[in-house]
């Protein structure tokens, strides 16, 4: 019990009196709204008091940093020991353009890299595929072969900087290229660090970057987890992502629940398929959340996430190592909260969302640039976004103490509510037979679609406000400079790809691809032959085509 019985009794008396007073006032003047809710339609009360957390047990529910259940963070010193990593997601045009942007960001004080690939690369197509028409370099960097990757990481010390790669169906291929580059730099695999997103479940649920059906998709993921556990121990082989679930329109609780249930599906698969104990791989599972505009809801979601995961890992999967209980996560401010209208307002939104993520104890953060509704960010816009993090970290003083909002009646109550409601979803998915079964039934997809539609209707009715969109609208369209990736990028990349295809040893490529095919058919780990194939200059698509041939392709069922 968090409060003594007498305190609660006294509180109850005082609250009753106060509520009588408030009722009189409200009857006379009313409040701004009948019901106050978060951006996720979670109802928020007028006031929170000790009574709301009467059941809270300090040790069980809050405790200390670096102690179970890690509500207050994994690190004993919080941000006093080490700040979160400033990690700006970036990629544009060619590998050379992106490498230049990376060096610019590192000069400006960024502490980790994060790669945005273009759509053909994300989907396992080369630039010369008919599917890639018009897409080259548009939303990120185009990578076809190891030679592109070498340019991408040119003069980046792979033993010092950690790199995150947002890559899903072809994650094995991009990771293989990174490993091959490290080898060429003379850096052994056990010295490189970074993350591949490699989370296919959320693709089927939300982001829709898919290639293979769910089962073989999971098989490839478990291959990377196994390979990482054996040879690349500092690599996070999955970044279990709620970000995209939220961007697709989910509520905060759906994001929390679906992400954690996805994580559980991966743990189960690696245990069953690879026979590994959770302690052999769970410390390298990482997470990725969205920080949306509702300040308290987001930070409570993050506190609840750590607590649920710790319990799941210790109790459900019997992990013994404390690091297996840790939920380590990256956060990105919410792209979907940004507005095309009055784009400079996005700087303010992003700052508040970043602050919430810091209050929630994120380990790594990307802050969106003001122009990201329109285009890949310009140098100036990305600098403001990075400076936003630096100001929060180094000027505001919020990083001076750990989990500063703990103990707030409201924050603890909301954290508890989010945990409880997330468990309801998790148990529901358990009862459906697990996440794969739920996805096959379209369950998470339709829950998100319902939430997204509801939000849109609230926006249209004016019940939900977006400044500059449905309130405080200005007649003149305010514009910001837009970065244009011109069509020449595609021509350059095509020339490059053709030249590589001409000069490489095509017999060696064929042999290497045969080895990948054989591994797929036998059910062996694909990573070793994949690394050999990229070294032989097999293209990304050539390797992915082998996967498609062996495993088949997934088509969007088009639910709405």
């Amino acid at each position, binding site marked *: 019990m968090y409060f003594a019985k007498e305190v609660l009794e006294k509180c109850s008396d005082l609250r009753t009196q106060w509520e009588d007073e408030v009722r009189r006032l409200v009857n006379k003047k009313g409040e701004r709204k009948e019901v106050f809710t978060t951006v996720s339609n979670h109802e928020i009360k007028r006031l929170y008091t000790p009574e709301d957390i009467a059941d809270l047990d300090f040790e069980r529910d809050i405790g200390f940093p670096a102690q179970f259940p890690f509500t207050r963070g994994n690190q004993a010193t919080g941000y006093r020991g080490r700040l979160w990593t400033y990690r700006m997601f970036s990629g544009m045009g060619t590998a050379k353009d992106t490498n230049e942007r990376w060096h610019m960001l590192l000069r400006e004080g960024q502490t980790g890299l994060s790669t945005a690939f273009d*759509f053909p690369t994300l989907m396992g197509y080369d630039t010369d595929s008919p599917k890639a028409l*018009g*897409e080259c370099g548009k939303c990120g960097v185009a990578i076809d072969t190891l030679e592109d990757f070498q340019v991408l990481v040119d003069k980046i010390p792979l033993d010092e900087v950690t790199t995150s790669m947002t890559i899903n169906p072809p994650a094995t291929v991009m990771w293989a290229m990174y490993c091959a580059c490290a080898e060429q730099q003379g850096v052994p695999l056990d010295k490189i660090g970074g993350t591949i997103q490699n989370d296919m479940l959320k693709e089927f649920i939300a982001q829709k970057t898919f290639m293979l059906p769910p089962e073989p998709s999971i098989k490839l993921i478990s291959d990377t987890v196994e390979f990482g556990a054996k040879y690349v121990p500092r690599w996070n082989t999955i970044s279990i992502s709620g970000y995209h679930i939220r961007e697709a*329109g989910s509520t905060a609780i759906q994001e929390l629940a679906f992400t954690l249930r996805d994580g559980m599906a991966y743990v189960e698969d690696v245990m069953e398929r690879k026979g590994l104990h959770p302690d052999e791989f769970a410390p390298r599972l990482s997470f990725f959340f969205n920080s949306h505009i509702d300040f308290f809801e987001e930070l409570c979601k993050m506190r609840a996430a750590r607590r649920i995961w710790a319990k799941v890992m210790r109790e459900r999967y019997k992990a013994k190592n404390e690091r297996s209980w840790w939920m380590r996560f990256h956060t990105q401010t919410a792209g979907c909260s940004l*507005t095309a*209208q009055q784009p400079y307002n996005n700087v303010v939104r992003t700052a508040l969302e970043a602050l919430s993520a810091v209050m929630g104890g994120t380990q790594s953060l990307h802050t969106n640039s003001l122009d990201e509704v329109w285009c890949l960010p310009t140098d100036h816009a990305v600098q403001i976004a990075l400076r936003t993090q630096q100001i929060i970290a180094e000027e505001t003083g919020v990083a001076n103490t750990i989990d500063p909002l703990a103990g707030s009646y409201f924050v603890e109550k909301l954290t508890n509510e989010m945990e409880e409601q997330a468990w309801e979803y998790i148990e529901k998915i358990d009862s459906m037979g697990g996440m794969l079964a739920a996805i096959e039934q379209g369950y998470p997809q339709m829950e998100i679609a319902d939430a997204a*539609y509801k939000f849109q209707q609230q926006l*249209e009715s004016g019940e939900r406000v977006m400044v500059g*969109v449905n309130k405080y609208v200005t007649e003149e369209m305010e514009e910001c400079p837009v970065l244009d990736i011109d069509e020449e990028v595609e021509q350059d990349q095509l020339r490059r790809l053709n030249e590589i295809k001409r000069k490489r040893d095509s017999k060696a490529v064929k042999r290497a691809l045969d080895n990948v095919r054989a591994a797929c058919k036998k059910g062996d780990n694909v990573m070793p032959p994949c690394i050999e194939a990229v070294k032989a200059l097999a293209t990304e698509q050539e390797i992915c085509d082998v996967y498609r041939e062996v495993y088949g392709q997934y088509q969007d069922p*088009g639910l709405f």
Partner: protein
Amino acid sequence: MADKTLRILVAKPGLDGHDRGARILARAFRDAGFEVVYTGCHQTPEQIVNAALQEDVDCVGLSCLSGAHKVLFPRVVELLKEQGADDIVVVGGGIIPKQDMSYLRERGIQEIFTPGTPLEEIISWVRTHVTPRDEL
């Protein structure tokens, strides 16, 4: 005849998976009483045109948020024309910078709806500008 239900294909050309807008619009069209076909993500212009013909739609709504609209939207119009189906109204939406609007209009995309356009506005545009094909 005026009551004949309009048939609309909502389609996402290209490789991006940002389907939140397309799916919301599909629902809104359905709620507005239209018959809606949604073909999901990652459709080529050829697949979209095939679906439009097979489903005998009166209007195709294209959604693209990857920046590839300048290549993909006009391609759909061209292919419809090749199939003798250029009476099907093609509209587009997504992240379309202002400077690309006239480029797309000149190539037969009849209206472009950018972020923040109320659903009601899109629905009423369709009601005003699209008529069932067999009435022509």
